[in-house]
C-alpha cells in the first residue's frame, strides 16, 4: 500500500506530491488534468516498470514502437521516440532532473526511477576466453566531454537496489531481460476503451475458479441480476472464451454479453479486484456503463473486498453520481475502510491537487457544493 505518492516527470505530471493516500482513492478533475497519467504512474510503479506493461501502455497511447526487421537500423530512434512520450514534454534528457520518479514522499523510501542514459559498449574476452559485451554508463558529469568512442543511448531503470540498463538498439518489447526486475504483478488496470485484452477476463477467472473468491463474483453480478447462480467462461478454444451465466429461473446458460454493459462492467471490475490481493486496483472512468443506482452497491463491494483482500484502489471519474455514491458508502458509520476524493486541476500547465475528506464530501453533498 502506498501511504503517500510522489510523481515526477511522468507525462503531464511534472511534479505531484500527495502526502497521504487512503485505501480507496477517487480521483476527479477536468480533461487534461492528468487523471489517467496518475493511474499509469501507479501501475508503472506497482509493476516495477515491467516492459510488457509499458509496451501495452505505449500502444494504448498510439505510439509506434513496433520494430520490423527492415527498420532494425532505426531501432534506437524508434525506441527513443516512443519511450520519450512517457516523460514530461517528451523530453530526451540525461540528467537526474530529467528522470521519471515514482514512489512515496518519504526521504528514506525507494522510488522507481526511469531515465535515458548514455553508455559505451565494450566487447571483451574474459579469462576463460569467452566473449562478453559490457556496457559502461557515461558518468553524468562527464557527458559534455568528448568521448573517442561512440556512445549509445539506453534506458536506465532503478528500483531500490535493482538497477538495469536497457539498450535501445533493438526490439526491446520482445526481449526477456525485463522480467528480471519485475516480481509477480499485483496490479490490475481497467482502462477505458481498451479492449485489446479481451481474453484477460477469462484468464483472471481461471485464477480464482472454484476458490472462495468466486463467490464475490456472483455477489457482484447479483447487483444487476439478482437471479445469478453461476458464471463461467466457455469457448471452442482456449484463446477465445466468453463469459456465460446461469440464472435460477432459466434452464439454459446465457451469454453475459446479451445482458448489457453494466453486468459485464461489474464482472470486469470484480474479477480484477479479486486478482490483486495485497496489490493495486486501478479503474479509469468508474461510471462507464453503470447506471447510478448500481454504483453505490458496487462501491460497497469494492470497499468490502479492498479491506478484506488488502487491495489499494485508485479510481477516476467525471461523474457527480459516482462521487455522490462513493461519499455515501464512505460515510456509512459501519464502513471501516478509509477513502478520500482527490481532484486534479491544471493551473497553467502545472497539475495541482485538492483533497476532500469524508466529512467534507458529506457536507458538499448535503449542501450541493460542486467538488468536481
Amino acid at each position: 500500500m502506498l501511504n503517500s505518492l510522489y510523481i515526477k516527470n511522468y507525462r503531464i505530471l511534472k511534479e505531484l506530491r500527495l502526502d497521504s493516500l487512503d485505501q480507496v482513492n477517487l480521483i476527479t478533475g477536468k480533461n487534461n488534468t492528468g487523471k489517467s497519467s496518475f493511474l499509469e504512474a501507479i501501475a508503472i510503479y506497482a509493476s516495477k516498470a515491467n516492459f510488457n506493461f509499458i509496451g501495452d501502455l505505449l500502444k494504448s497511447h498510439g505510439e509506434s514502437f513496433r520494430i520490423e526487421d527492415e527498420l532494425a537500423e532505426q531501432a534506437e530512434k524508434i525506441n527513443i521516440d516512443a519511450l520519450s512520450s512517457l516523460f514530461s514534454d517528451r523530453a530526451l534528457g540525461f540528467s537526474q532532473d530529467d528522470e521519471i520518479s515514482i514512489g512515496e514522499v518519504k526521504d528514506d523510501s525507494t522510488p522507481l526511477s526511469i531515465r535515458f542514459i548514455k553508455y559505451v559498449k565494450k566487447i571483451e574476452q574474459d579469462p576463460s576466453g569467452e566473449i562478453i559485451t559490457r556496457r559502461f554508463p557515461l558518468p553524468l558529469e562527464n557527458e559534455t566531454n568528448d568521448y573517442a568512442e561512440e556512445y549509445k543511448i539506453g534506458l536506465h531503470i532503478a528500483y531500490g537496489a535493482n538497477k538495469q540498463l536497457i539498450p535501445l538498439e533493438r526490439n526491446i518489447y520482445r526481449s526477456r531481460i525485463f522480467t528480471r526486475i519485475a516480481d509477480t504483478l499485483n496490479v490490475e488496470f481497467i482502462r477505458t476503451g481498451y479492449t485489446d485484452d479481451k481474453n484477460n477476463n477469462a484468464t483472471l477467472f481461471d485464477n480464482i475458479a472454484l476458490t472462495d473468491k468466486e463467490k464475490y463474483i456472483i455477489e457482484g453480478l447479483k447487483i444487476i441480476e439478482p437471479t445469478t447462480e453461476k458464471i463461467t467462461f466457455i469457448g471452442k478454444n482456449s484463446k477465445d472464451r466468453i463469459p456465460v451465466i446461469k440464472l435460477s429461473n432459466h434452464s439454459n446458460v446465457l451469454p453475459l454479453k446479451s445482458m448489457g454493459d453494466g453486468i459485464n462492467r461489474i464482472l470486469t471490475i470484480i474479477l480484477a479486484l479479486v486478482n490483486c490481493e495485497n496489490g493495486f486496483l486501478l479503474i479509469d472512468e468508474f461510471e462507464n456503463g453503470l447506471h447510478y443506482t448500481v454504483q453505490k452497491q458496487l462501491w460497497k463491494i469494492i470497499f468490502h473486498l479492498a479491506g478484506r483482500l488488502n487491495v489499494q484502489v485508485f479510481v477516476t471519474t467525471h461523474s457527480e453520481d459516482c462521487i455522490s455514491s462513493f461519499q455515501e458508502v464512505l460515510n456509512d458509520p459501519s464502513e471501516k475502510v478509509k477513502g478520500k476524493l482527490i481532484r486534479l486541476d491544471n493551473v497553467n500547465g502545472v497539475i495541482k491537487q485538492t483533497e476532500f475528506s469524508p466529512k467534507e464530501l458529506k457536507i458538499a453533498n448535503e449542501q450541493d457544493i460542486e467538488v468536481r
Partner: protein
Amino acid sequence: MKIQEKFPKKLLVEGNDDQHVIWALCQKYDVIESFDVVDCNGIDDLIEQIPIRFKSSETKTVGIIVDADDALQQRWEKIRNILTGIHFEVPADLPADGLIVSHEIQKAGVWIMPNNRVDGMLEDFISFLVPKDDPLTPIVESTLSEIESKELNKYSERHRSKANIHTWLAWQEDPGTPLGLSITKSYLNADEETCVKLINWLNRLYG
C-alpha cells in the same frame, strides 16, 4: 431560498432574509450581478461550507455575511481561524469597512452584521436604514417597552431588534412587507452610512 448557482464567485449568507436584502441592495445600487448569493440555512452550515467552497475548482471569491448575534468577537475569531487555516493572511481585527483578503487567485471577504463593530444581526442593520426623523420610530419603541414592562412580549431579548423592525414595517403602506422588498419599495433609506459601506465592500470584493 435555494438558487441555481451560476457564477464562480459566491456570497454565503445565513438565511432567506439576508439573501433578499442583498439582492434588493444590489438592485438599488446597480451592483453588477457577478456572484451567487447562497442561502446556507443557518450559521452552522455556513461555517462548515467555507473551506469546501474554497476547494471548489471554479470558485475564486467567497464572501461571507453573518450575524454577530451577542458575540461579535467570538464569531470573528471563528471565521478568522477558518480563513487562516485555509491559507489566508488575516489581520487580528475585523476592519470596520469589512474584511477583504487575497491569496494567489483566491479572495475572501467577511462582513459581520450589523456593522462589523457591534453585536446584532441583519435586523439591526435594517433598523439603521429607517429614516432618522420617522415619526413612527418612537411609537414602535414605546410600544415594545410597554408590552415588555407588562411582560406580554413573547420574543426574547435577543430578538428585540427583529420585533422592532417588523413592527415598524407592519405600519407601512403594505403591512407585512418582508425586509428585502421594503428596500425595493423605498420604505428604507439605503443611503445610510453603514449601508454604503456594505455596498462598497461588495463592489471591492466582486468588482
